[in-house]
């Protein structure tokens, strides 16, 4: 109980320094949390034991404690959460966030509606970041060769190298790609003082190819910004733009907006090897090997026609396999028919030439400036040599590195095996590693510096379009972590000048750079602007304007002429970022580990995916262990058959097979980095054979075929079919209902309901994590998932529609349908699940005795059971992530989606006191990047949800059971090109 209650703390008088305040908050919170947890656990178990012994009468719970503040901060009212704007960063690109804080304890992350990359949405990574914050396995102390040392010792060691007198010769920095103006300024400062120091950036998934592609096409590093809202036809060349890339949430939103506008529906062609979310959303999907995409791009360019290209597209290049011709030509015609309203997108994994060709096609179709604009990258030194670690590797190899400072990038693990950083790091005299965990890299480094989590840090960062956000901490570093900014500033002149002790804090640094970056004359309002930036979560007017760029046709022609299509390997290994652990950095996050991967519904591991045909050919079944051999390395991975993957490819995602720094994921899955060569994502040849061992894959869904139940479960149609039908989608199934029951409407002022637009839903899984974070949904581990005990209140069902080898994948979010005539309720013997006046199917955990009859009678199987005490043994730190407004469920009780009833009741209370500001949102709706989920009041005729319920496409799942769900689905409509079958 105490975790939800009065986590209050003393505070220093300086209210301007939220950091120290929150530090104190947390110290108390931690201490406070620890004791009651032990107690509660004890009571729960003893309660059971004693009740069984019939002695319940003789015990009483010990008293709880209430721990008030010493000085209550004026803005805090215990019990009322506060929201702070900040930003998270991935690959250097920012995503604006609003974070909910309960008495100094961040509990929930939402997207910032004002932020250009978020538009109010957040993805699974961001939703789960709050759990990473409270990860008890994070690094906790500065260590030197494994033993704890003082920070001053580290400062001394790092700043006293031989290079101090040699202008930085021998000093190397390895950073994550960053867009932070403050870091850029500190780096500039460092460079000024130590000109020979070398700064490199490393991330296995940097958009290096994109930058190079722009360099080929335009002669300079530019990033395309897509305006899908203006596009009618999109061709994605191995581009999973809906779930990857810095603008993924924005693009998902724009795409969905244009999908659900049936009168002007966007059409998407996707060419890809593995089955991605974007491929699932596509109207036409061409499955080809990743290495073939270049040929397809060239052929597409050739079919569209590049009049400005001297000598045209080389025929040798534009020679795709014959069966793909029809697709390419149809796409080309469609593109050509939509000049200025179409766009070709190249995927990050594709070589620069594909990007260049995409630019060329866009230019040829007058799409530049219309559906795609170009702008310089906000990333520091984008496209620069600094982004190539080869230089660092050779310096290390040559013994030219004295001191290497690695900030935030787990380079030892997250590098292709041919860049032997594991071994190379030892060649530097001393290495320091700033990381969240003591991981593979820290094991090779002299110093380990615990890193502050983004939610603990001051900093700044820029969105894909350059919009700057101030990163503000919600809590003081739990484990004394430092930021990259702090570490780098050790080397900056500004600090040295004032002596090491009087170092600037990151807060000062960020404020200073904010000050410096203000337009001239604006510094007068510095405080006001600073506060406004913090409040809004963005610094207005910092976006980088797009520029006009002309294609360097001659350069392109030259480059294309030089490009020789590589002969395809017999079996191609396609390595891609993982939708859950990305490149391994989230492998310590249980929410992400247990998040079913889109398309495959696989949890807790990666797998060597292969198409039905390849599996049949090789005699492989899902669960067989495969030995993969590539680049001279061997890795074992379980096989997973994914219909619709390109034949003769093996897909493997990055980030698994961790050995250190991710306790939960150790030994799970296969390390794709070990097989990669060159850049992590380039396709390579792979040999494989079965080892004979079998794996129990923790799949949340085992059966993907609809068994002819499409009309009952998932309505899908092409735009044409939909128009032809000209009737409501539920017209076919809705029959005149005869009932004995009194169907008078329920009494509540609001009547909550939901509409889920399957045309919008991409199945990305952000809602699943959002729900988990909001509702204290436990994770259960791979064994339990395998047994069928995953706890997600909201799951994404994935159905295969169409041809069994290359089906269309249709995701369907499935959650409690809040049936008007709920079948679960009348079978509960103790009134533990009943209906509220406002139409919610309520689940009363404390009344539940766990007969599970409700689950049996739920046709949607959305009820979850606490088979064990899943929260038991949770670390005290981990408990801080709990939402204090939601009960933490004991073992033996059912749970399920409540429509975020805690938010609804809070809203009711506020509304009735005249304090309600806006209609309540469910967590899934709030985070959904494509706005597929709409929740609202059905008794409000003007509400969006009411409108959607009246839509032609609306239908109820399993309508014929007369459960009358409050959740309606909108049929999944596709917009195929009539030219193509």
């Amino acid at each position, binding site marked *: *109980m105490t975790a*939800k*209650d*009065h986590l*209050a*703390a*003393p505070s*220093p008088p300086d209210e301007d320094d939220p950091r120290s305040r929150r530090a*104190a908050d947390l110290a*108390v919170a931690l201490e406070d949390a620890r004791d009651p947890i032990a107690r*509660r656990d004890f009571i729960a178990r003893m309660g059971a034991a004693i009740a069984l012994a019939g002695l*319940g*009468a003789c015990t*009483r*719970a010990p*008293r*709880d*404690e*209430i*721990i*008030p*503040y*010493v*000085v*209550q901060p004026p803005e805090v*009212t*215990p*019990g*009322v959460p506060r929201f702070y704007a900040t930003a998270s960063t991935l690959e250097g690109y920012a995503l604006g966030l609003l974070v909910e804080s309960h008495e100094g304890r961040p509990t929930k992350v939402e997207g910032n509606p004002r932020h250009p990359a978020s538009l109010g949405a957040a993805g699974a990574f961001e939703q789960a970041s709050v759990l990473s914050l409270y990860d008890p396995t994070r690094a906790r102390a500065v260590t030197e060769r494994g033993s704890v040392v003082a920070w001053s010792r580290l400062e001394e060691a790092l700043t006293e190298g031989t290079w101090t007198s040699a202008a930085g010769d021998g000093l190397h920095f390895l950073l994550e790609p960053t867009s932070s103006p403050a870091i850029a300024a500190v780096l500039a400062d460092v460079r000024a003082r130590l000109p020979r120091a070398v700064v490199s950036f490393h991330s296995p998934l940097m958009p290096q190819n994109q930058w190079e592609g722009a360099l080929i096409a335009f002669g300079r590093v530019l990033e395309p910004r897509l305006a899908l809202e203006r596009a009618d036809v999109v061709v994605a060349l191995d581009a999973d733009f809906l779930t990857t890339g810095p603008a993924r949430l924005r693009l998902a939103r724009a795409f969905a907006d244009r999908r659900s506008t049936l009168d002007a529906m966007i059409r998407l062609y996707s060419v890809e090897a593995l089955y991605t979310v974007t491929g699932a959303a596509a109207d036409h999907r061409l499955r080809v090997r990743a290495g073939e995409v270049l040929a397809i791009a060239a052929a597409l360019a050739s079919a569209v026609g590049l009049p400005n290209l001297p000598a045209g597209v080389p025929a040798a290049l534009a020679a795709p396999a014959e069966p793909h011709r029809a697709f390419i030509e149809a796409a080309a015609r469609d593109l050509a028919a939509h000049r200025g309203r179409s766009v070709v997108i190249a995927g990050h994994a594709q070589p620069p030439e594909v990007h260049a060709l995409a630019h060329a096609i866009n230019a040829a179709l007058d799409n530049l400036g219309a559906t795609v604009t170009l702008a310089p990258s906000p990333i520091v030194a984008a496209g620069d040599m600094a982004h190539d670690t080869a230089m660092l590797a050779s310096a290390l190899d040559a013994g030219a590195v004295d001191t290497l400072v690695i900030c935030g990038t787990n380079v030892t693990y997250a590098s292709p095996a041919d860049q032997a950083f594991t071994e190379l790091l030892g060649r530097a005299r001393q290495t320091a590693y700033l990381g969240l965990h003591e991981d593979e890299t820290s094991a090779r480094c002299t110093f380990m510096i615990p890193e502050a989590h983004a939610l603990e840090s001051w900093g700044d960062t820029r969105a894909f379009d350059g919009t700057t956000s101030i990163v503000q901490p919600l809590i003081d570093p739990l484990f004394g972590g430092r930021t990259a900014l702090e570490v780098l500033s050790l080397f900056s002149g500004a600090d040295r000048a004032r002596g090491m002790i009087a170092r600037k804090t990151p807060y000062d640094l960020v404020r200073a750079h904010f000050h410096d970056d203000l337009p001239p004359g604006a510094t007068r309002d510095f405080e006001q602007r600073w506060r406004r930036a913090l409040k809004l979560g963005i610094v207005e007017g910092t976006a980088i304007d797009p520029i006009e760029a002309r294609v360097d046709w001659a350069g392109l022609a030259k480059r294309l002429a030089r490009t020789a299509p590589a002969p395809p390997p017999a079996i191609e290994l396609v390595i891609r970022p993982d939708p859950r652990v990305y490149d391994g950095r989230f492998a310590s996050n249980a929410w992400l580990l247990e998040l079913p991967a889109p398309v495959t519904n696989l949890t807790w591991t990666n797998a060597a995916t292969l198409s039905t045909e390849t599996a049949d050919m090789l005699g492989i079944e899902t669960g067989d262990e495969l030995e993969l051999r590539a680049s001279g390395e061997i890795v074992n991975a379980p096989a997973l058959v994914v219909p619709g993957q390109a034949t003769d490819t093996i897909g493997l995602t990055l980030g698994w097979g961790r050995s250190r720094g991710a306790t939960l994921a150790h030994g799970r899955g296969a390390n794709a980095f070990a097989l990669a060569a060159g850049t992590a994502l380039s396709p390579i040849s792979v040999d494989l054979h079965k080892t004979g061992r079998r794996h129990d894959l923790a799949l949340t869904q085992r059966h993907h075929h609809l068994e002819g139940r499409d009309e009952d479960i998932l309505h899908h149609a092409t735009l044409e079919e939909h128009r032809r039908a000209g009737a409501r989608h539920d017209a076919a199934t809705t029959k005149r209902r005869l009932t004995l029951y009194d169907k008078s409407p329920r009494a509540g002022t609001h009547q909550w309901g939901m509409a889920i637009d399957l045309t919008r839903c991409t199945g990305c899984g952000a809602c699943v994590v959002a729900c988990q974070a909001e509702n204290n949904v436990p994770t259960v581990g791979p064994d339990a998932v395998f047994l069928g005990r995953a706890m997600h209140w909201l799951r994404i069902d994935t159905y295969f529609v169409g041809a069994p080898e290359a089906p269309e994948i249709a995701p369907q979010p499935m959650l409690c349908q809040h049936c008007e005539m709920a079948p679960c309720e009348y079978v509960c013997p103790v009134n533990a699940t*009943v209906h*509220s*006046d406002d139409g*919610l199917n*309520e689940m*009363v*955990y*404390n*009344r539940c005795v766990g007969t599970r009859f409700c689950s049996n009678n739920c046709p949607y199987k959305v009820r979850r059971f606490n088979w064990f005490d899943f929260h038991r043994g949770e670390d005290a730190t981990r408990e801080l992530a709990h939402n204090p*407004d*939601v*009960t*933490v469920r004991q073992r033996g009780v059912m749970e399920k989606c*409540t429509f975020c*009833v*805690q938010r*609804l*009741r809070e809203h009711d*209370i506020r509304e*009735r*006191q005249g304090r309600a500001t806006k209609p309540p949102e469910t967590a899934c709706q709030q985070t959904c990047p494509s706005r597929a989920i709409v929740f609202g009041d059905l008794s409000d005729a003007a509400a969006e949800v009411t409108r959607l319920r009246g839509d032609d496409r609306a239908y109820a799942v399993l309508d014929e059971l007369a459960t009358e769900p409050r959740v309606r689905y909108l049929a999944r409509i596709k917009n195929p090109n009539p030219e193509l079958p």
Partner: protein
Amino acid sequence: MHGAADLRVNLFPAYANQIYWLAIGGAAAAIVGTPAALIAWARTPYATGQGEPPDQPIKFDHRHHVRDDGITCEYCHGGAARSSKAGIPATSVCVNCHSQIWTTSPELAEVRRSYFANEPIRWKRVNALPDFVFFDHSAHVNKGVGCVTCHGRIDRMGQVYQARPLTMRWCLECHRAPEEHLRPLDKVTDMEWTPDRPQEELGRELRASLGVRSIVECSGCHR
């Protein structure tokens, strides 16, 4: 075997019947009585935790502060009107006054220690609800439910104790018929208020004017 044993006399003396009946009656009484006793026990103040003040780190006396000094409830428990939690005052709130008066009182040593050491005072919770109950002070205080209705005569408590059973049954009694317990908003903190006209009439009016609902659906309190 036949006839070998002593078969003549009664196996038991006459008084054994009384013992037998007593035993059977006792067993029957136990079968019926044990649950009945437990049911009754659950309603005792002991079981509900009423009436027993815990040992607090400071002997804070509401009688003195409320009655003698006339400090209103909101001065210290200001969250009640805006938040789900009424809030326990920060040490600084104590110090507001106690930096002026009783500055050296040994009774207040803990307050000073807390303030200067920047360590919170660890109070014992008196009115404890289970983890799965979400009570909202603001929803009650702003709808005419007086402090005294749930907390009792705090102004007469030397040490605060739980005045009401705080069982679900007790909550529901009011939730089903809120009009029986409503008072004008300006009397919410008044410990001594009594209705100046029949509560039925007043309650009905207040219920209408304040828009008080009878919330008996589960998610009203259990989420």
